[in-house]
């Protein structure tokens, strides 16, 4: 069933990586919220959202992302994105998501830069 996400939290030095498996739609809301809550309990300061390269992301999923970004902003958490195709990079740019979360081409690049920043 596609209306389900497996979200694993991985700690890489100061960065909490959300490994999001599956499509990102309105159905992702509880899964992303639970993961975010858990990250907060662990005191996450830097958050990297890692998507499946071939995930289907729709406007409902983007709305969920925006809600997460609203929270990370309030909580002063540095937030970035990786693992999205060129198409969704373009869409995240169109919508303005990229004003609030930098998109990195690879996990390694993201971690290298995010761990460096204080």
């Amino acid at each position: 069933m596609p209306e389900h996400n497996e979200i694993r939290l991985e700690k890489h030095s100061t960065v909490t990586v959300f490994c999001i498996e599956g499509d990102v739609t309105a159905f992702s809301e509880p899964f992303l919220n639970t993961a975010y809550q858990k990250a907060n309990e662990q005191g996450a300061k830097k958050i990297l959202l890692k998507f499946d390269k071939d995930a289907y992301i729709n406007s409902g999923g983007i709305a969920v992302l925006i809600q997460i970004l609203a929270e990370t902003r309030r909580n002063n958490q540095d937030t970035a994105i990786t693992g999205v195709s060129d198409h969704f990079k373009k869409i995240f740019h169109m919508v303005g998501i990229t004003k609030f979360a930098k998109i990195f081409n690879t996990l390694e690049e993201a971690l290298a830069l995010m761990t460096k920043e204080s």
Partner: protein
Amino acid sequence: MIQILDERTIEVNLPNKIGYERVAMDCAASFAKIVGLVSARIEDLKTAVSEACLNAMEHGNRGRPDARVIVTMNCGDDDFSVSVLDEGEGIRELPKEPDIEKKIEKLEAPNGLGLFLIKQLVDQVEFNEMTKDGHAVRMVIKIT
């Protein structure tokens, strides 16, 4: 709009069930690939078709499980067009552009991105085509 199913037209008839928009999306992608659309435009088409179907299900058909969404795809010489038909009365008022700053500040609802994406991704779009069978959104992507 009269449904003429000619040699360049494929029609998909879907139940009104969120999630099933993927079938229309994959179908459009498959057709577009056969007729030679480049992959970036196929991605644009996929998102546009998926968003139009979601709107047809949610707003046009108001979630009624017995309603249908009919997606008609046509490949012309110069353009690839897709009509998404629902059983509703059309879009009452086209909403204003989403404002990400306001959404982040929670001064605006996080949703309301579908029509915006459709308008951005296709070369031409007509909302509110009223027919005897309902309301259609017609989207066109140029083949270059």
